């Protein structure tokens, strides 16, 4: 098992060295990056907006329920919702959602190309297949996932506000006051830093699983599952390390 881990780790870093080799033609890589921004980023808008909205609303209701105490000021609900979203949900939880959506898509796309010999066709043409297929995805994700994270923060907070407005569990003015109370802009940079690392992990781990897929459709399916599982675990490990490093 240790040997297998060492073999996989070695193969992963060799793949990365191929990915970051000099591109054959910058204009083609630029075009591919724009395509990937659409595929990995813009197409994930919907899921991020929907999940963030409902989670923001639910956190508001749960927090309100848990701190119903005359000694605690009501605006604490807003503070808690804001900090939960900024510190954890909009970075780590959104990354886990994207690991499922984007990770499986990358692994199955590259895995299918591997088993249908499309990657061999690229290699035969003299194209660095690893760089051509993976580098645009990394660039697109590293630049666009932070935008999705910021969007998630706004939508989550808006979800909380809307639930206050519609259900009257909390005066919206208290919620707004709480959202603004003792706000540290550092929380946003902390979240964005984490998302950049997560984006790299999700894309490279998923691409690795797809790139070395062997066999047929069954193996492509397996590589897709492995991509989601491994990238989720690594995202959580990375979360622990970065939180310790940045917030301690």
């Amino acid at each position, binding site marked *: 098992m240790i040997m297998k881990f060492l073999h996989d780790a070695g193969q992963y870093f060799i793949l990365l060295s191929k990915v970051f080799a000099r591109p054959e033609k910058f204009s083609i890589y630029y075009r591919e990056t724009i395509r990937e921004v659409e595929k990995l980023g813009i197409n994930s808008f919907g899921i991020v907006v929907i999940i963030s909205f409902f989670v923001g609303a639910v956190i508001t209701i749960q927090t309100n329920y848990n701190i119903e105490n005359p000694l605690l000021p009501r605006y604490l609900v807003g503070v808690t919702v804001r900090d939960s979203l900024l510190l954890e949900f909009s970075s780590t939880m959104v990354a886990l959602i994207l690991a499922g959506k984007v990770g499986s898509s990358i692994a199955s796309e590259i895995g299918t190309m591997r088993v249908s010999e*499309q990657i061999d066709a690229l290699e035969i043409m003299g194209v660095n297949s690893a760089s051509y297929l993976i580098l645009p995805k990394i660039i697109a994700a590293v630049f666009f996932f932070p935008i999705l994270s910021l969007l998630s923060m706004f939508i989550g907070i808006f979800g909380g506000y809307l639930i206050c407005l519609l259900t009257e569990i909390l005066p919206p003015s208290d919620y707004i006051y709480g959202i603004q109370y003792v706000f540290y802009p550092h929380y946003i940079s902390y979240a964005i830093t984490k998302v950049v690392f997560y984006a790299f992990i999700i894309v490279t781990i998923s691409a690795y699983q797809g790139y070395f897929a062997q066999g047929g459709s069954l193996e492509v399916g397996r590589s897709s599952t492995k991509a989601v599982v491994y990238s989720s675990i690594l995202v959580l490990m990375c979360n622990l390390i970065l939180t310790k490093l940045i917030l301690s």
Partner: protein
Amino acid sequence: MIEARNISKKYGDNLVLDNVSVSFEQGKTNLVIGQSGSGKTVLLKSIVGLIEIDEGEIWFDGRLYNTLSFIEKKEIRKEIGMLFQGAALFDSLTVEENVMFPLNMFTTMGVKEKLERVNFCLERVNIIYANRLYPSELSGGMKKRVAIARAIALNPKYLFCDEPNSGLDPQTSIVIDALIKKITEEFKITTIVNTHDMNSVLEIGDKVVFIHEGRKMWEGNKNQIMHTNCEELNDFVFATNLAKQLRKK
């Protein structure tokens, strides 16, 4: 000319290629035949460098290929066109974009020039009015022809075809075979075709190499293949009862 000298390849304890030496001549359709699992695909992929060989040398027109680095190999790979068993067209690109792909990657041609070249290659393989179609909208035979068009887009010096007739009906197979032969002769390409289709052997086999259990057992041409004493080759060529009866007569 392409030469493989004493090449061997092992997977674990399984010797897939055993000291194979073979040469393929320019302007001729060179066929590698053998049963499924005999090692012919490994031989083809070893020659083009998709599989690293354990021993031996591979030469492309006097240039030692297998010891070159990835960057150095790229220069020779630009001279190689390859037709894969499943065509290996890029699913996300149209027919036109597929054929244009190598031109976009490795030339400085303008858009108009590239389009002219794409249309020339597609016409060459008798594909017209399909530029905007995606591979999923094409039949098996059309996919193979588009793959040939993509393979010849950069005027290759070497053309490799891995089972070009697999999954095709006999009539389409003949069309593909004729196309490969015509292109080989027209552009003076060194062509290597992997096949186990005896019709192809008899139609286009300028040179035929028979691989059995990872070893080269026989080489000759399509006229000699019917009159050989090589037992394994005879078992392969006259595999059906009908063929065996015809041979006895």
